């Protein structure tokens, strides 16, 4: 490696490290401060907890004074059910749109790509009205429906690209073998889509888990609150219970990190496949 190359490599890494710090910093700050007493949070916010400032008071309060486990399970239910439906319907629709030519398939593909361009929040009022008249107001089902609609267009788009990379001979071979179309999809195509499915799963889960907007407008009772909404009760107009807020937020981060770690190997394969043969 020449000195010029080394210098370039170092500068690239400096930029990357700086960006990583910028991205990870706030999260680190939240997690760190969630383990400190209130005075230390304000006294020295950038210092890690030590023996004198360490405290679990935030976590205690969260478990004592709110239904955090309920919120958690609500969030999990909504996220996982939405993800499952997005992946199932997304893969099936992507398969149909790439594999079969039928009347209106082009129009349908175009319609779905509009879903990528137009943010779903523009339709909030209409969605609220719709859910009200369908009697789904203040239910988790309403959230699931909205998130499935939100996630589908992008997942169909990504999965279509991957399906096109699966050799056509494989489907033909399966057809000659007498495999029914539905089994070709589930037993030949779907297993080969694993990296793509992991990619779509992460892209789908993160915005749903973090979403505050739709829980805010579609759910009202405590029993349907999600984690992001549940945290809000510690943020008061006059007093904010920072210990509890930070503790709840730290816990909210955890599942996303776990899912990402589980899927990351597949995710990287998905992001880079096609880039190199």
């Amino acid at each position, binding site marked *: 490696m020449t000195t010029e190359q080394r210098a370039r490599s170092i500068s690239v890494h400096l930029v990357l490290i700086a960006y990583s710090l910028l991205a990870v910093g706030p999260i680190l700050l939240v997690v760190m401060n969630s383990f400190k007493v209130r005075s230390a949070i304000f006294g020295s916010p950038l210092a890690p907890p030590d023996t004198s400032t360490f405290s679990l008071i935030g976590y205690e309060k969260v478990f004592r004074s709110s239904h955090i486990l309920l919120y958690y399970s609500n969030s999990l239910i909504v996220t996982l059910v939405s993800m499952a439906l997005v992946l199932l319907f997304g893969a099936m629709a992507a398969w149909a749109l790439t594999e079969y030519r039928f009347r209106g398939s082009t129009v349908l593909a175009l319609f779905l790509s509009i879903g990528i361009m137009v943010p779903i929040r523009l339709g909030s009022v209409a969605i609220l009205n719709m859910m009200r008249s369908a009697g789904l107001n203040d239910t988790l089902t309403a959230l699931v429906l909205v998130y499935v609609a939100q996630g589908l267009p992008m997942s169909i788009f990504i999965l279509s690209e991957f399906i096109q990379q699966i050799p056509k*001979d494989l489907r033909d071979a399966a057809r*000659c073998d*007498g495999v029914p179309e539905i089994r070709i999809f589930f037993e*030949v195509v779907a297993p080969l889509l694993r990296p793509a499915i992991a990619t779509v799963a992460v892209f789908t889960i993160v915005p749903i888990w973090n979403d505050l907007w739709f829980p805010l407008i579609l759910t009202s009772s405590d029993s349907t609150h999600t984690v992001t909404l549940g945290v809000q009760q510690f943020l008061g107009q006059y007093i904010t219970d920072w210990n509890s807020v930070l503790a709840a937020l730290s816990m909210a981060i955890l599942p996303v990190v776990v899912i990402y770690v589980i899927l990351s190997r597949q995710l990287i394969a998905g992001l880079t496949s096609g880039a190199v043969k």
Partner: protein
Amino acid sequence: MANLRIEQLNKRYGATTVLNDVNLSIEDGEFVVLVGPSGCGKSTLLRMIAGLDGASGGDIHIAGKLVNTLAPAERGIAMVFQSYALYPHMNVRKNMTFGLKFTGVPPTERERRVAEAARMLRLEELLERYPRDLSGGQRQRVAIGRAIVREPEVFLFDEPLSNLDAALRVSTRVEIANLHRLLKSTIVYVTHDQVEAMTLADRIVVMNKGRIEQVGKPLDLYYEPANLFVAGFIGSPAMNFFEAKVESIEGGRARVTGAAFRGLDVAAASLSVGDTLTVGVRPEHLVRGEAGAFAAEGIVELVERLGEASFAYLRRVDGRMFVAEVRGRQTPAPGETVTLVAASPDVHIFDASGLRVATGTR
């Protein structure tokens, strides 16, 4: 086992015609090779027999049954693809049994068929391996095995050897020939390689631009090509062609002359004075000498030595090239002027439309 009948088969994509009124009848147990340059429609024809592509018109009968509207699996065919098309996430055994699950073959019968195919193709050791761990030749054998366990009426092969290296291609070719002898099944085999076609086929179907040019036994195609296309396509290096004219006809013999060769006497048959002809002679039928029905002169430009023979590329009087096969160690030197002759049975005459003229020499 079954015969196969194709009638008036057409395939069009918009304005382009891929297959044009194809008629073909294949006997039970016959090994038929479809051969032709790329884009001639041979693969399309095979896919239509398999039912993977629909026809724009015409009928396909397998074992006497009209199969036009049947799905591939219901036609009693099995196909081997050029890319092998093995299921990458299943081991060899599963690759072979996967299709059988859906066609109502009981598990014990599946196992029996896999064992038999594995024995026939020497795959016993590989049954638990995945396609990614196999070599090209092994993958091809698995693909063939997957076809065998279906016990089809007709085997369809789509350029099965073109992804293999030269040595493996020869050995797999022999294996396929043995397999046909063993199974006695009807096989339709697509290739662009005329050596494969000549060595494997009971009958060859030469296709060009969506039409069948000629159907016949390998040596019949070689010695009696129906037209210029088949004459030029079968044989390597390709047949030499010389422009010619009928100069005179006398006593049932026609005098054929051209710029690049000495005059030639052939049976007049259907020829008439002034006809434009093409005279064709294969490189391997040209020998050095003076006496012969056909004689052409050229200046040697290049000699390719292959060992058992050498190919001399010669510049003709009219400026074009022709090729002659030279046997033995004595090859002509570049720059040398050489006269090459051929006996009359080895001289082919084609009329202006490219059809072979029966000159009664053979």
